[in-house]
């Protein structure tokens, strides 16, 4: 064991791995979650509830295909509604995963190791939910493939100046890279499962998935390089994706959309909502599966801090919108801001401020950051808040734009809500399946906390107080 004790150089912090763990305990604890026979009653109940929601989703999609997007609250003034709001919301949520696994990796934030696995899973599932919306929101979904550049008998191509085409590329790239990243991370753990699994069928399944990984040093070598490069690539990607989503709005000419601040502030918002969602998932999972040793208060605390930080950036964004409207003195911008604050959708705006700006300030207090119940509540509130933000951006900007004669209202219908709820069901369902069949925490990376791959790595691992040696 080569833990260079530099505890003196920095204030004592909680460990990111509870004392008393060695390679064996880590390996066995995490893999047992998957390999343990049978699942709890609660798991089945949860899956059942989600399936119900997914059914609702299917029904609303079928009805949508039958009748057309008219079943939603859209109209000629507010031509974009829930579909776009939910799309942006889900994509945003996805961002935390990539951020944790990529950016924090580059920043050598070792505390990420115990959360990146399910954060990445969450990313993929969120992107799946998001992906549904652009498809179904078009008037003729059966022609949506026209957005792809493929040679055809019409001799026509997509129009590459359109942000929607950028979306197609950004989101599909994002989905692919996230999936690859996730899978690559899984391979060594799948090998572990292969070796620990009892019974040939299970061994074969994990055997195939792990591609015959055997931990050879050559492999580890390239593996680490690939992983690092992926992280390096994914970092600009994750930032670009929500910037591109922001372009959907900022490229337009609509007051409230046409704003240069959108890209950064969308990215911050995305991370904000993403970490909120990670917490929303981490806290229960940690409690249910007794992962307190691996996902320690240190993690919770750090995530809360990230939330606080990004939350402040978002708040700054709100402030800037108002300031620029006033400073720019554009009558339409000024009106847009007034309309958000005092117009018919004012309640939505003020609850947005409450959820995203006011309440997160509680996170300044360490006590609250360490109170998981309260933290869970705040995380949920932030999720709601971020959804409201997108609602405000999409609806209040459109419903009263340049010509007052057009002004109109947007009222979501049952089917709007049904579709939204359905995707939430799908998301949670996928999570349930994930925690049951895949290691929720990266086993081999946890091992590196005990056995740092690089000599210098140790000082960050926070293992100062741990005695691993027997």
């Amino acid at each position: 064991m080569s833990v260079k004790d530099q505890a003196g150089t920095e204030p004592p912090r909680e460990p990111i791995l509870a004392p008393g763990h060695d390679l064996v305990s880590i390996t066995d604890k995490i893999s047992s979650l998957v390999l343990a026979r049978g699942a709890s009653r609660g798991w089945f109940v949860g899956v059942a509830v989600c399936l119900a929601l997914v059914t609702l989703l299917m029904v609303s999609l079928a009805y949508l295909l039958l009748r057309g997007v008219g079943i939603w609250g859209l109209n000629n003034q507010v031509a974009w509604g829930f579909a776009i709001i939910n799309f942006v919301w889900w994509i945003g949520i996805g961002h935390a995963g990539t951020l944790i696994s990529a950016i924090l990796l580059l920043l050598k934030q070792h505390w990420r190791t115990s959360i990146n696995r399910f954060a990445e899973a969450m990313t993929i599932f969120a992107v799946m939910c998001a992906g549904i919306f652009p498809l179904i929101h078009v008037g003729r979904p059966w022609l949506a493939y026209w957005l792809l550049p493929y040679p055809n008998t019409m001799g026509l191509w997509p129009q590459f100046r359109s942000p929607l085409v950028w979306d197609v590329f950004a989101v599909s790239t994002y989905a692919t890279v996230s999936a690859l990243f996730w899978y690559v991370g899984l391979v060594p753990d799948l090998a572990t499962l292969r070796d620990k699994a009892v019974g040939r069928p299970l061994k074969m399944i994990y055997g195939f998935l792990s591609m015959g990984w055997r931990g050879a040093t050559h492999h580890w070598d390239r593996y680490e390089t690939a992983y690092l490069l992926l992280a390096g690539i994914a970092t600009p990607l994750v930032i670009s994706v929500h910037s591109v989503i922001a372009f959907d709005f900022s490229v337009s000419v609509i007051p409230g959309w046409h704003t240069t601040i959108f890209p950064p502030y969308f990215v911050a918002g995305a991370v904000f909502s993403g970490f909120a969602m990670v917490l929303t998932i981490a806290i229960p999972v940690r409690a249910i599966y007794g992962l307190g040793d691996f996902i320690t208060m240190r993690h919770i605390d750090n995530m809360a801090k990230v939330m606080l930080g990004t939350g402040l950036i978002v708040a700054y964004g709100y402030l800037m919108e108002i300031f620029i409207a006033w400073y720019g003195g554009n009558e339409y911008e000024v009106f847009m801001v007034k309309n958000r604050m005092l117009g018919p959708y004012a309640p939505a705006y003020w609850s947005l401020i409450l959820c995203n700006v006011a309440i997160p300030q509680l996170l300044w207090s360490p006590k609250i950051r360490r109170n998981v119940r309260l933290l869970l509540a705040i995380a949920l509130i932030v999720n709601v808040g971020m959804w409201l933000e997108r609602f405000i951006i999409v609806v209040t900007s459109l419903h009263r734009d340049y010509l007052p004669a057009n002004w109109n209202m947007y009222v979501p219908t049952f089917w709007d809500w049904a579709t939204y709820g359905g995707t939430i069901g799908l998301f949670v369902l996928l999570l349930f399946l994930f925690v049951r069949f895949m290691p929720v925490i990266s086993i081999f990376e946890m091992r590196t906390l005990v056995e740092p791959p690089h000599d210098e790595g140790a000082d960050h691992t926070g293992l100062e107080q741990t005695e691993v040696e027997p």
Partner: protein
Amino acid sequence: MSERAVLDDAIYGSLAEFESADDLLAAVKAAREAGFRRMEAYTPHPIERVSHELGHKNHLPLVVLIGGALGAGSGFALQYYTSVISYPVRVGGKPLNSWPAFIIVVFEMTILFAAVAAVLGMFALNKLPQPYHPVFNASIFELASRNRYFLLIEARDPAFDPITTPAMLRDLTELQVVDVPS
């Protein structure tokens, strides 16, 4: 599987189990000094020092670079061809070659190709998938994905000797050393 080993009494190599990374490292050093080259270490987690000892070359970054360049090139080519050559149309008073608007797709394509190159390259260079490998024949190898460190010296190594090599390894570890049937 030992039966199979007996049937064709060819041996793939000799596998030594270690308690810790340090032991493994020491063994690797020793083995190299003993003139062994065709050997491979197996560890439950990456350990750079070992790979240093074994001294690998790693071409992956180059692969990724090529992938990225390819992505960028094809990304711009696609957009230029479709909007300037194939079917030029006036759109919102913008020039046919609206390169600033094309940057995003170029960027995304770069990322996509680079990422795919990284992953495929990694698997390809590692010769994966390879569900079957002789080293799995050693039953103790199950621990390689848990908490044990292994050093394998291949029988193909000119310096390999079915008697002396395992013996040498036994001196390097207090855990067991086994023959890996091929």
